[in-house]
Structures are given as structure tokens and as C-alpha cells.
């Protein structure tokens, strides 16, 4: 029986790959072929869809916009989460437990509920349609996540390391930056990965908070789908391209991902 255990993950991965293959397949087809005949692989292989995306500024700007706010959010989330996670893992202070729970509840707020108030809030502070607006908004659910993951990693570092450094004469911030952060580099990688991922896949808030200048790629796609009729090949190519950054990031942190989940408290 042991001999066939590999079958389960293999079948599962096959199931995961099918829709992605279909997307990829379609992205290399012409619109005529997609709508005309049913084919398992492109008969009239074309790169036109991709060419269009890489030459049309409305398309490639969408990517750049998305990447910009995602990176911004990742940096903000991880930077803010680092000292907070340290406090949760090392100190006891008034209200620490409640604060932790409150932070987590923000992951539970349905974005659909808050879309409109968010629009009003960011319009009010004159940040509507800027990268920073989306980056800040995504902090709502990414910061709690980052705190949670980092706290897990930090709790794995013995408290005696901190003590040794203080005894050696390191002021807190110097210790934190020079010794502590490198020690939990893997945790930072994992936290950054998850922030990147959730910011990248989220659309509702990103779409609500932008109109032109900071419009994310995913929003560009929906608009295309509705206005330009069904340019399915183009849509498929754009969709395919959205998978790439994530795949790239996950490759770098693959060895730590399992660990990132196993640690951490609730």
C-alpha cells in the first residue's frame, strides 16, 4: 500500500494544473480559435496576446501598479510587525492578550463590508488612487498575519540571546538590527511571502481605492472583459502573467513555508 502513496499528491497536482493549463493554452490561441473550435492545444500558436500586453501601457502599467503597491505593503507590514512581534514574544504588558486577539479579528472583517467606508476614508485624506492607499489598506489584514508569523519565529529564539547581547553592551536597536533580525531572516522571508501573496491576490479593496493612476492589473482585466467584449485570449494571457510573480516568490521561500505555519500561536 505504501508503494502507491505518491499517487495521491500526483493526482491532486494534476487536478491543480488542469485549469492553469487551460488558461495557458488559451493565451496562445487566437480569439477565432478559442470561439471557433475546441482544441486541446493551440493549433494557430500566437504570441500576439502577450505582445499586446507588453506594448500597451494600460496593460503593462497595471502590472507595475500592482507590483508597486504590493511591494510597498510588504515592506510596511513587515517593518511595523517586527517590533510588535518582538514585544508579543518577549514581554508581558497591560492588555497584550486582548490586543493580539483584536489584531486577529481584523483578518475576520469581510472586505465587502468595508469597501465603501474605505473609499470615503481614503478620499477624505486625499490618498484616493495612489499606491500608498492600497498599500495601507492591505495592512488591515497583512499586519496581523505578519505579527502572528514573526512572533512564532521569534519565540523560537532563546531569550538568552537578547540577554547576552545586552550584557555585551548592545543598545536595544543595534542588537535588534544587527543580531536579531539576521537570526530570524527565515521568518521574515515567510512573513514577506504571505504579505506579498495576500496583497497580490486581493482585488476588492484595490479596485475600490483606485481609478486610473494606481489601477491594479486585476482590475484592468475586469474592465477589459466588460468593455472590449470577450477578448478571451488576451484575458488569458494577462491572467497567466499574474501567476508568475507569486511563483517566483514562493520558489525562494519554499524551504521555510512549512515551518512558518508550524510555529506561531493563535
Amino acid at each position, binding site marked *: 500500500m505504501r508503494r502507491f502513496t505518491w499517487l495521491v499528491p500526483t493526482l491532486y497536482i494534476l487536478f491543480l494544473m488542469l485549469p492553469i493549463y487551460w488558461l495557458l493554452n488559451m493565451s496562445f490561441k487566437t480569439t477565432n480559435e478559442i470561439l471557433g473550435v475546441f482544441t486541446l492545444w493551440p493549433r494557430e500558436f500566437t504570441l500576439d496576446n502577450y505582445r499586446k500586453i507588453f506594448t500597451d501601457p494600460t496593460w503593462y502599467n497595471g502590472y507595475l501598479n500592482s507590483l508597486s503597491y504590493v511591494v510597498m505593503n510588504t515592506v510596511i507590514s513587515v517593518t511595523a510587525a517586527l517590533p510588535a512581534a518582538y514585544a508579543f514574544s518577549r514581554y508581558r504588558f497591560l492588555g497584550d492578550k486582548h490586543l493580539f486577539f483584536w489584531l486577529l479579528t*481584523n483578518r475576520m472583517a469581510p472586505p465587502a463590508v468595508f469597501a465603501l467606508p474605505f473609499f470615503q476614508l481614503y478620499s477624505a485624506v486625499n490618498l484616493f488612487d495612489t499606491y500608498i492607499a492600497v498599500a495601507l489598506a492591505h495592512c488591515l489584514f497583512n499586519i496581523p498575519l505578519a505579527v502572528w508569523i514573526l512572533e512564532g519565529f521569534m519565540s523560537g529564539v532563546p531569550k538568552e540571546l537578547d540577554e547576552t547581547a545586552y550584557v555585551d553592551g548592545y543598545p536595544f536597536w543595534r542588537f535588534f538590527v544587527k543580531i536579531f533580525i539576521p537570526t530570524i531572516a527565515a521568518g521574515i522571508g515567510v512573513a514577506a511571502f504571505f504579505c506579498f501573496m495576500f496583497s497580490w491576490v486581493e482585488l476588492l479593496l484595490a479596485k475600490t481605492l483606485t481609478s486610473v493612476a494606481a489601477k491594479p492589473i486585476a482590475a484592468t482585466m475586469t474592465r477589459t472583459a466588460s468593455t472590449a467584449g470577450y477578448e478571451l485570449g488576451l484575458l488569458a494571457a494577462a491572467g497567466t502573467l499574474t501567476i508568475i510573480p507569486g511563483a517566483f516568490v514562493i520558489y525562494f521561500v519554499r524551504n521555510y513555508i512549512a515551518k512558518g505555519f508550524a510555529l506561531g500561536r493563535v
Partner: protein
Amino acid sequence: MATKTQNSRAWLFVLPVVVLVAFNALIPLMTVVNYSVQETFGDNVFFWEGVKWFEQVLHSERFHASLLRQLMFTSIILMIEVPLGVAIALSMPKKGIGVSVCLVLMALPLLIPWNVVGAMWNIFALPDIGLLGRMINGLGIDYNFTQQPGAAWFTTILMDVWHWTSLVVLLAYAGLRSIPDAYYQAAKIDGATPWAVFRFIQLPKMKRVLTIAILLRFMDSFMIYTEPFVLTGGGPGNTTTFLSIDLVKIALGQFDLGPAAAMSLIYFLIVLLLCWVFYTLMMRHEAQ
């Protein structure tokens, strides 16, 4: 003093996080509360309405229907994804290159923007140009998710399983990896059956991560919006109109701000309450 140090300055460390999250959480929440007790006819003119909207929403059959649909959807996907994820994690390779390959490929669906997931499945499942649609119809089953409620549910659930099972797999796998070899060796020596190993070693050790998995899947599926909206648009009819979709329809489509806000709050409170119950149960368990 193995325990943590008492330190009131720790608040300074937490401050940036609190400010950032509070800015995003409290202000919009207050806005919603504000709307929920007022009536508007546009032009920023509001009238105090008290709990009228709450009563209206709580008695509305439409709300009941979408809440019921939501609960059904969430329970179904939990019942599928959790056991399936655990089963896959159990059969995954323990070491070697296979681990990396599995992890990277399995995490892929998690990294795709949610509307792309919806669009992708829409294309994939269409009866005329989609691979899945073609395959099912090829089996002699009449399948068209844009027309048949059953097919629409099936497709939505299949899409969610496709999208999120990997999260459970990753978590369960991480839990499994943290079990020291000595446990398996001891079980071997004690003559435990594979089922006993699962029941008494693997499952208890995975309990923590599985709770997290269930919690995350519960929250995310309860708040699901983008994917089913892009896939089915809530149709056919209202058959796949889940809470969030319904809410956005009311808030943006009909611009009924008051009822929408009241509904939002009720919705938020439901999620919060269920999570709180979950969290306290877990904390109590850990304290034991």
C-alpha cells in the same frame, strides 16, 4: 525567570501596528455604524433611524436566504477541504526534491488574484469552450453552470476546493513535520496499526495547525466574494448569491446604504462571534 519580562514600554513597540490597523479598522467600522442607524436620500442628508435597519435586515427573507446559502457553502467546503488536505499531506513525500516540487506546485493556486481564479474557472467550466464543461458533457451528463443551479453550486465548490485545499495541505504538512521520529518509532515498537498512528500521534499533533486551518478557511469562505461573483455573478437567479455578494448588490447596486450597513454589521458580528468562541475554546485547551 523563564517567563516573559513585565515591560510597559512594550506598548511603544506595538504602537505602529496599532495605529496602522486602527486607522483601517476603526474609522471604516465607525462609518458603517453611523450609516446603519440613519436613512439617506442622497446629497449627504441623513436622518436618524435607530435600529430600524437592523430589524428590517434580521426579518428580511432575502438575508435569511443568503445567510443560509452562506452557511451551506462554508460547511460543504470545510467538510471537503479539511479531510482532503489532511489526506494529501499524509501522503506527501517526507524528504528529497519531491517536497519542494509538491510545495511549489501546490501553493500556485493560492498566488493567483481572486478575480483571475474566477475568470479562469469561468473559462475552464464553460460547456462550449471549457475543458471541464466539455469533459462533463462528454460523459453524457448535461452540464451548464450558467443555467443550472446544481451545476453552478458544483462548479463554485470545485473552484473553492481547487483554490484553497492547498492551504490546509501546507498547514497539515507543517504540523506533521514537527512530529519527532521517536514517536513513530515508539508506535512501531508498541505495535500500533497505521490507523492508531494517525489517531493517537498524527491527529493530536496536527490539532493546533488544523484549528488554525479551520479558522482561516471558515473566515475566508464566509467572506468569499470575488471568485463566485466573477464565476457565476451570483446566478443563475440568486442560487449562488452568498452574503458578500448580496451585500454589495444592496450597497452599490441599489445604494441602500442603511440596510447595507446594518447587514454588514450583523455579518461582521457573526464572524467575530464564531471566531471568538473558537479562540476561547482553543486558549482554554492550551492552558490545560
